[in-house]
């Protein structure tokens, strides 16, 4: 019911860089039954301010409520919704992929195609670092999956709005 209207949204939230702020934001999502698909946090150039990037999805009415609720938090300075804006997004992943000798060349080729790089190698595994939007990372993962992926760490999406040209 109502799922037709469901859409994905990238929210970029500037907050006071203080203990407990992230927990307020996350608590707001969990307490109201909103879903978080990914979440990234780090300090900005202003050490008093952090940027939190959250990917979430829901009906437009729910998204509107999420944004309003976020704005209502005392430590939230600004909420930007990139859904209808021009923006740049990216994600980084570290992938520990099994590197049997017969697969090594294939893996390196794939790494090359995706402009990823091998950041660690051991007799049995490579660790590959890949940067891009989530679909690029997904595509890379699907290609190396048959060789055997041992572990993945993904940062989740970060995003910034483009400036007018």
């Amino acid at each position, binding site marked *: 019911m109502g799922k037709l209207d469901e859409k994905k949204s990238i929210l970029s939230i500037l907050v*006071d860089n203080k203990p407990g702020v992230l*927990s307020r934001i996350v608590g707001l999502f969990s307490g109201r039954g909103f879903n978080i698909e990914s979440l990234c946090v780090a300090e900005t150039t202003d050490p008093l301010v952090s940027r939190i990037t959250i990917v979430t999805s829901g009906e437009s*009415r729910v998204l509107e*409520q999420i944004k309003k609720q976020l*704005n*209502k*938090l*005392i430590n939230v300075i600004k909420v930007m919704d990139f859904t209808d804006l021009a923006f740049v997004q990216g994600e980084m992943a570290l992938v520990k992929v099994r590197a049997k000798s017969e697969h090594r060349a294939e893996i390196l080729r794939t790494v090359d195609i995706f402009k990823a790089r091998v950041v660690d190698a051991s007799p049995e595994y490579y660790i590959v670092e890949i940067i891009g939007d989530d679909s690029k990372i997904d595509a890379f993962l699907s290609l190396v999956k048959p060789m055997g992926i041992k572990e993945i760490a993904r940062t989740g999406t970060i995003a910034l709005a483009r400036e007018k040209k």
Partner: protein
Amino acid sequence: MKLTGAQIIMKALQEEGVDTIFGFPGGAVLDIYDALVKTDLRHVLVRHEQGAVHAADGYARASGKVGVCLVTSGPGATNTVTGIASAYMDSVPLVVFTGQVPTALIGNDAFQEVDIVGITRPCTKHNYLVKDVEELERTIREAFFIARSGRPGPVLIDLPKDLVQAKTSNRPIKEVRLRSYHPTYEPNSKQLPKVVKLLKEAKRPLVFTGGGVILSKASEELRRFVAKIHAPVTSTLMGLGGFPASDPLWLGMIGMHGTYRANMSSGECDLLIAIGVRFDDRVTGRTDAFAPNAKIVHIDIDPTSIRKNIPVTVPIVGDCRITLEKLNALLETEDLGNIKEKRRPWLDQIEEWKSTMPLDYEQSDVIKPQFVVEKLYELTRGEAIITTEVGQNQMWAAQYYHFDRPNCFITSGGLGCMGFGFPAAIGAQIACPDKLVIDIAGDGSIQMNIQEMATAVQYNLPVKVAILNNGYLGMVRQWQELFYDRCYAHTEMSCAPDFVKLAEAYGAVGLRATKPEEVEGIIKEALSVQRPVIMDFQVEKEECVYPMVPAGEPITEMLLV
């Protein structure tokens, strides 16, 4: 000069204009108490921390000031949670100070440690753990600013013991400014002409008000507005008193136990002007059937309230009083024609609903609870501050006591918290020593914070408690009667104390009425003494509150008897 953290707290409280604190001491706040007794701040010692918060809540609502509590760490802090949640739901400005174990022990499961900031995060407007004494004064000033501005609410400050002992040279705070917090008071001026236009087109407008009208002190402007547009008015439970019940345009409360005419009006109106309400499910019933024929204007200071439950034609984010002021100014320049004539068919229709389905009950040879409330209204000439517990007592108070002024009806609306009314009455009595304060109670709810009778007696507070004693958790019993085949699972409270003796045991006055003829007499007697009184009215056991809208039904589908 160097001050300790505790002294800074006292100084900040005084600068914020605080004169009364409700609290309960303990190890973690000993230094604060030690500093407190050396000031002229009044401290009211309650008997349970939940009582402290509800009392501060009643104090805040009766006085329009910020209510303040002080409790110890651990169990003291957790005992405040229900009161904080109640104040949060009803947007009551409070500052709650909790003691905390010394900074070095935080996170170590120390004796009487709880993460009260974590626990209360979802039910405070904001909260703080202060870790640096240099930050203490600023934090307190921010807390008061946040509690009372915008949509008011409770703010909690957690104070580690070493912090209140630490000394610092004091630098006064001149002004509080928060980078990220700027409530919108002024409505968007483009929206207001839209309201005027809708008002001109409407044939059946209805004004629907809530607690926001009272919080923003908008009653006067509301009256002017209503006089101008000559539209009928209904309100939520929290809005009672925002518009005078003696005005001919008053319809009574709307919602699950709203009057027939108020609920029917919401079904038939073509324009609903909602002011300071949040469309609670107890008001709207089934949301897709709420005001189905109406364009909706919604004025509220909190953007999250708008379009949360109900689609809105004209959303206006702003303070209710300022918005009404501007609307009134705009209407001043408008010719609404012969408005009284234009409204006649609509008001006639409402009058007919009223005359065919009035609020009513039949008095027999057993005392009816409604009769008690009516008598209380009559004998106090409607001039008392009424607090309530939760349940049928609360609804009968809302239906049969009529409020002409704001800040006279104090009830736990959003949380519906049993045990609220009596401590709230204590707080209201302290705020308004010259007023008559009555807690209309159920026999179940009063037992939740009855221990505060000791507080009332200790501070010579002449609060009156009127127990509508039906021997049941009446409201729940009513649901069982109507929706669970009369299976009264654990709602009978046959084992209750003798409330008259209980009052006496505390040093208060106890009175009882078992027959209708005795009701008037004991109310008069209670009103004549300057002491706390419990009136035990032995009322009809299985009386129900009507009208009633079953949960999830449209509010025009009422059960009437």
